[in-house]
């Protein structure tokens, strides 16, 4: 007779918690972290501005902010809170830390030039994501305390920073794609099974951001805005 632990379970059976418990994680995180979400969000909003600045130190700060957002949401939300009720969250938490290290490494290497000449669109998309996306958890839970803050909540952090791989020159950006894709798949499957359909906006927007990031990329082959790519080739 078969004795393997996992082969007897379907995806539905592996979902170990209910929607209320998941949304409470956001509430608890916000309560425990208060008032630090304010500087974190301000820094998050400054990221696209800093990335486009000529001063290398400011760009470095932006990369460190992006990397820290991953480490913080990995070590905070995933490892400290989510893993208590969902075992795979622990592995994902460590993957977020690795992604933070990768982002810091690759970002700081590319810091010798401003990110790209199409900063305006990059900025706008980034800001819209950081400002609007957090509200999906509020819509789902009915309480503003569940706001999914950039830098703390993984869904919003991943969605906004998914603009970044496409903005990096060369092939190195692709190194930053697997972990976000893993998270997007995992969270989409979780939210679908939990039937918290508002939250599905998070992985969907995350995926769209990845595509937009490459679309906004300065490479003429990838960018739809060839005009601006021509104008400022030195900044690519």
């Amino acid at each position: 007779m078969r004795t393997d632990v996992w082969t007897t379970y379907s995806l539905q059976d592996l979902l170990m918690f209910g929607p209320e418990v998941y949304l409470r994680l956001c509430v608890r995180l916000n309560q425990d972290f208060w008032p630090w979400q304010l500087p974190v969000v301000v820094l998050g909003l400054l990221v696209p501005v800093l990335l486009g600045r000529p001063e290398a130190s400011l760009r470095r700060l932006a990369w460190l902010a992006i990397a820290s957002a991953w480490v913080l949401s990995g070590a905070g939300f995933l490892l400290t809170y989510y893993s208590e009720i969902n075992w795979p969250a622990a592995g994902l938490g460590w993957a977020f830390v690795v992604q933070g290290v990768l982002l810091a490494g690759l970002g700081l290497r590319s810091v010798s030039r401003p990110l790209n000449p199409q900063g305006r669109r990059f900025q706008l998309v980034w800001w819209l994501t950081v400002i609007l996306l957090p509200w999906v958890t509020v819509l789902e839970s009915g309480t503003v305390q569940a706001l999914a803050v950039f830098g703390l909540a993984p869904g919003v952090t991943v969605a906004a920073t998914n603009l970044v791989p496409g903005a990096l020159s060369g092939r190195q950006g692709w190194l930053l794609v697997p972990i976000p894709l893993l998270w997007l798949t995992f969270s989409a499957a979780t939210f679908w099974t939990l039937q918290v359909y508002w939250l599905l906006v998070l992985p969907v927007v995350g995926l769209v951001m990845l595509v937009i990031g490459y679309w906004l990329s300065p490479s003429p082959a990838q960018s739809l805005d060839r005009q601006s790519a021509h104008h400022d080739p030195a900044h690519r």
Partner: protein
Amino acid sequence: MALTRRQFVLGTALSGMAIVSRPLLANPSGTETVSAIARGIPSTGETIPAIGMGTWITFNVGSDPYLIDQRTRVLETFLTAGGTVVDCSPMYGSSANVVGAALENLQAHDRVFSASKVWTSDQSATREQTRSSLGKWGVARFDLQQIHNLVGWQGHLETLREMKASGEIRYIGITTSHGRRHRDLARIMETEELDFVQLTYNVLDREAEERLLPIAQDRGIAVLVNRPFQGGQLFRRFEAKPLPDVAAEAGVSTWAELFLKYVISHPAVTCAIPATSKVDHMQENMAALYGNLPNASQRQELVAYVRSL
């Protein structure tokens, strides 16, 4: 839980069934007594209430103080209504810790019939996992230790027998669910000495009626029934529909009661273990522990009605 449960009075029409007299605390006067439905465990004759409580998903709330307090109220409602059997497993995330916290808050360790599980393919880890679960529950020993989903069952069963012989646990069981591996379970039930089996049985999933429940009756094995609401699916499908005409005669006034009384009115069933995260649902579910049960022909009518919807 002590073997002699003072409130339970043995002897009813159904084999192995007992009636429990206890004050119905919902009654403001606190004086009226009603009879709770209980069943005997065939291997000892000890009786347990026919409605217990599951903890899969519902009690996995991590270390959230607000939710732990809320689940404590759920357990309190269960105990107040006369329930004792609480089922958990190391597979259920933080559920065992939350059960332990709720028991501690209520100081109710000796009021539960504790049913835990071993869930590891490492067949030498039976004792270690049992010890770990005991620590989480905060009880000195488990009333029932089950092998979860037949995982590593041969090795675990051997160790559980030793543990039972030395008094470390009181009863041994083995579980399955979702209708999986019934043939394997039937073979184990026919060849091994077990006190309990746990399986899925509800008004729609009735495969157990064919083989497993008759074997349990023949071999004197107590039956815990999981997923009596098909994981909540039965409510989503039928709750908006009217109850059948036969409901009132069959002692049924809500859908929850219908689903549960259908299960516990099978003579081979010892206890159904529905799970809930809500106090009002627990109250509704525990109503099934009282009043009439459907007889054989009413059971058939209930099934026919539900299938017709």
